[in-house]
């Protein structure tokens, strides 16, 4: 399962990828497309990425997290392309023997992903207009 997908993210499948009988606590972060632009109602967001780097950088982020939390299993995906409002654009799953590690590890991975993944958002307004959304 690659880090990068152009299909809807299947969170259940990510959860299944890390499930086992020894890791009792799993934390998932799911980031979804939000409206809230000033210029009008957003219908969807077009996510574009530097895909080769996205995959490598996501892997580096998870390798770093695994160094810090060796007992934690991770699964993660970023969706690219046109994503309708309310649908997930990113999901991070961390499964650990104890829940505090799962919370911390999941949090670190999403913070690093937001900071480092080469992804850009273009808002698609209902009236047909577009705008790059930069945080």
């Amino acid at each position: 399962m690659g880090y990068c997908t152009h299909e809807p993210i299947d969170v259940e499948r990510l959860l299944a990828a890390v499930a086992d009988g020894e890791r009792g606590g799993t934390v998932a972060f799911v980031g979804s497309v939000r409206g809230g632009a000033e210029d009008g109602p957003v219908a969807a967001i077009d996510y574009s990425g530097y895909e080769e780097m996205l995959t490598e950088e996501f892997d580096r982020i998870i390798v770093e997290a695994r160094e810090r939390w060796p007992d934690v299993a991770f699964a993660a995906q970023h969706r690219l392309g046109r994503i309708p409002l309310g649908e997930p654009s990113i999901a991070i799953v961390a499964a650990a023997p104890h829940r505090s590690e799962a919370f911390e590890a999941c949090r670190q991975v999403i913070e690093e992903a937001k900071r480092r993944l080469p992804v850009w958002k273009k808002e698609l307004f209902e009236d047909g207009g577009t705008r790059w959304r930069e945080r």
Partner: protein
Amino acid sequence: MHTGDELAPTAGTITIECRFFARYAEALGRDVLPLELPQPATVADAVRELRSASPLADVLPERPLAAVNREHAPLEGRLAHGDELAFLPPLAGG
């Protein structure tokens, strides 16, 4: 990455591949540009060279976010022949 025979350097220079994304690519009307630079060269040297002529002067900031061979790189980062130098608009992932 020191492959890429198609980018054979002239004496004392290197050739790199510049890549542009999102807002940069849109404003520039293209997403790839080969660039020849005198050795030794840094990311900052490439930025200066690119910004010396429009339309890139209007598109690329003086201190853009950059990646060399798919890894975030500082402006002082050294470039080698055949490197892939990507210019990244402010990230908005997740």
